[in-house]
C-alpha cells in the first residue's frame, strides 16, 4: 500500500491530506486544552468539561471529525486504486544456446481469435501509452504482423475503430510460391551466426 503511495502525484497529495488531518486533530485537542473552543463563560448548554478541558461539544467534535475524514479519505482512495491493479505472475524458464530469443506474451483465449473474411474484433487496450501488433498466424507459422496504435482512448469512452490493411492470403500464398529465393548468404552462414 505504502509503496504505491510513493508512485504518483496523487499519492503525494494524499500524504499531505493525511498530514493536514493529523494537524487538524492536534489543533482541535490543543484548542480544547487551551480553552479556545469554549464559547463563553455564560455556559452553553452543550459545553463539555473533563478536568481542565472544557469545550463546546459541537465545534470540538466537528474539528476532530474533519481531521479524521482528511486522514481516512486518501487511504480509501488508495485501497480502491489497489483493487484496480492487475495481479502479476513471474514466469520462470530457460533458453539454451547463444541467441537471445524475444518472448512475446499473448493472452489466450480472450485475445486470440481466428477469422476468415471480415474482422470485427473488440479488444481491450491494456495501456494508454502503448503500441500494439496483430500477428497473423497460420498453424504454427507467423505469417506477419500489423502494428497499430490508439491514441486518446479513455476508460468509458466509445471504442475507437482501427482499420487493418486487407490481408490477402490467397494472393500472398501464390506469389510466394512463384518467387525464386535469392540467398546471398548461405543457410550455413546464417546458422553459424545463430540466425534462422
Amino acid at each position, binding site marked *: 500500500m505504502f509503496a504505491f503511495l510513493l508512485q504518483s502525484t496523487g499519492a503525494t497529495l494524499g500524504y499531505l491530506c493525511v498530514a493536514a488531518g493529523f494537524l487538524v486533530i492536534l489543533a482541535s485537542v490543543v484548542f480544547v486544552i487551551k480553552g479556545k473552543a469554549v464559547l463563553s463563560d455564560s455556559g452553553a448548554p452543550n459545553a463539555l468539561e473533563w478536568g481542565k478541558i472544557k469545550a463546546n461539544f459541537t465545534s470540538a467534535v466537528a474539528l476532530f471529525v474533519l481531521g479524521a475524514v482528511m486522514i481516512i479519505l486518501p487511504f480509501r482512495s488508495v485501497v480502491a486504486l489497489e483493487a484496480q491493479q492487475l495481479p502479476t505472475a513471474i514466469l520462470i524458464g530457460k533458453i539454451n544456446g547463444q*541467441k*537471445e530469443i*524475444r518472448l512475446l506474451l499473448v493472452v489466450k483465449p480472450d485475445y486470440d481469435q481466428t477469422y476468415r473474411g471480415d474482422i470485427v474484433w473488440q479488444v481491450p487496450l491494456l495501456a494508454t501509452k502503448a503500441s500494439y501488433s496483430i500477428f497473423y498466424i*497460420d498453424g504454427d*507459422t*507467423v*505469417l*506477419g*504482423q*500489423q502494428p497499430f496504435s490508439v491514441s486518446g482512448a479513455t476508460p468509458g469512452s466509445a471504442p475507437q475503430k482501427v482499420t487493418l*490493411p486487407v*490481408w*490477402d492470403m490467397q494472393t*500472398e*500464398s501464390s*506469389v*510466394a*510460391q*512463384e*518467387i*525464386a*529465393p*535469392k*540467398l*546471398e*548468404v548461405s543457410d550455413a552462414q*546464417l546458422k553459424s*551466426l545463430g*540466425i534462422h
Partner: protein
Amino acid sequence: MHNSRALAFISGLLLSAMLAAAADLSGRVTVRGAPLAGAVITANLIGARGPAAVSVTRTGTGGEYTLRGLRNGDYILLVDMNGRRVYQGRIALTGPTLVKNVDLQQK
C-alpha cells in the same frame, strides 16, 4: 592539464553520441519490378544481443519498407513471404541512412 581532461571528456561524449546514433534502413522489395506487398523484413544485427538486435517490419502496398532507429553495424537482412524465405543477404549500416532495394525473380 585541466583543459585537456575537459577536451577528452567532451570528445568521449561526442564519440559515444556518434556510436549511439540511430540509423534508418529503407528500400523496396520487388519481383521483376512489381512491388511485393506484405513481405516480412527482418534485420538481424550481427554479433549483438538483446531486443534491439532484431528489427522487423512489413512491406507496404508499394513494396516499400523502413526500419528506423537501427544501430550501425553489419546486418543480416531477411525477407520472408507467407512464411517462406525469399531473400537473405548481408548489409553494412555505416551512416544515418541506407537504402537497400531487393529485386527478386520468378521461378
